[in-house]
Each structure stands twice: as C-alpha cells, then as structure tokens.
C-alpha cells in the first residue's frame, strides 16, 4: 500500500526539479544581457558621436567616459534618462540623452550597458 504512493511522490519530486531547472534556464536565456546586440544598438544610436571613440574619448569634457563603467549603473542611468522630467523623484534631466533613449526597451538598455562594461578605457577604481 505504501510503495506506489512513495513512487508517485518520487516521480512528482523529479518532475518538480525538472520544471524548476527548465524554468531557470529559460529565464536566464531571456534576461541575459547581450553585449553584441548592445554594440549594434550603440552604433545605431551613434553614442560615439558624443562619448567618442570606444566610448572613452568624449568630444566635450562635460560628457562622461563610459568604457568599462559598471553595467548595472549604466542601465539605471539610461532608465533615469528615459523617465526624464516625467518622474520628479528619479528622472534625470538631460535633453540629448532623453531623446536618445526614448525608443529603447529595458532589454535594449541592458544590452547597451553590457556592451559599455565590456569595453576597456581610462576608468579606474582607486581610493
């Protein structure tokens, strides 16, 4: 009487584990930032026109160097520019950047951020 129940239980556990693994894998595929696509987007949006060659030689000292910057910070900054004046608590107010990011999806911004971090430039972490 007990055995079939146990077998069913084991089967159920295995099925759950498989489902969880599959879900995890699918989620990772869906959310992994794609630096190659980020490069395509960065070229299409002409980021280098202001941020310079390799995004490390801005044409004005008022613009930031981006190469090597943390991707999660870059992603958040892009989202803040997208919020712009519409969000008085978090938005960043910059006419050029606001116009640049309007058409980007969140996954586009993650891809661009991953591309930015993949570059190496002048940025260094020192105390």
């Amino acid at each position, binding site marked *: 009487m007990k055995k079939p129940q146990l077998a069913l239980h084991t089967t159920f556990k295995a099925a759950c584990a498989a489902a969880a693994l599959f879900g995890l894998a699918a989620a990772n595929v869906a959310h992994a930032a794609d630096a190659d696509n980020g490069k395509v987007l960065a070229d299409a949006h002409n980021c280098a026109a202001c941020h310079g060659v390799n995004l490390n030689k*801005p044409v004005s000292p008022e613009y930031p160097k981006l190469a090597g910057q943390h991707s999660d910070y870059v992603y958040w900054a892009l989202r803040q520019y997208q919020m712009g004046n519409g969000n008085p608590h978090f938005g960043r*107010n910059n006419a050029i950047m606001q116009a640049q990011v309007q058409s980007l999806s969140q996954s586009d911004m993650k891809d661009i951020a991953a591309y930015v971090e993949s570059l190496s430039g002048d*940025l260094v*972490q020192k105390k």
Partner: protein
Amino acid sequence: MNKIVGKHVVIAALSVLAGYAASAQAADVVGNAKAGQGKVAMCIGCHGIPEYRTAYPEVYRVPVLGGQNQAYLENALHEYKKGDRHFETMHAITASLSDQDIADIAAYYAAQTPASKSNPDK
C-alpha cells in the same frame, strides 16, 4: 537698415556679456587634485570599495569615478547638490560641499590612472 544693424550689434554685445558672466563664474573656482585628496573621506566609503552596491531605488554597483572627465564630475556633483540629479545619499553629501570642494574632488578623481597610489590619508 540701421535699425536692424543696431539690433544685431546689441544682441551680439549681450551674448558676449552673457558668455563672459558664465565663464567668469566658472573661472573663479579651479580644482586642485592635491587638495581634493583630503576631501574624499565621504566618497571612499562607497566609491572606494570594489563592486559596492547601493540598494535603493535599484540595486546597482555605484559608478567608477577614477579617470572620469573633471567637468562631468563637477557638473554631476552640482546637480546632486541642487537636486537636479536624484539620489538622497549624494544629495546629503554634496549639500555640505562648497564650490571649491566640488572642484577639488572632481580634479582628484579625474587625475587618477591605473598607476595612482591609494589615498595615503585613508
């Protein structure tokens, strides 16, 4: 004809004056990297720790500052102070900084290279 020329002369003169006023304000404060070295105690607590993350309103690693453009850093600090850029911690810290402090701190970070030594004051 004369009226139109005169108008343009006035506009040009005003533009020159406006430009002069804007640059004069900036020219008063010159950043000094050496002086900045003694003013970054509050920065190091986050920006000096590799991979240090902030938690609100989004989890992200705080930006790398070393080697960044001086003018960009200076503007960013002023914007945090004024409230045009939003992050409570940065707003609180910059509120205590003078224009000279901001210029010095920006100069300090802008001057950093891979060969720079860690801040000897800390």
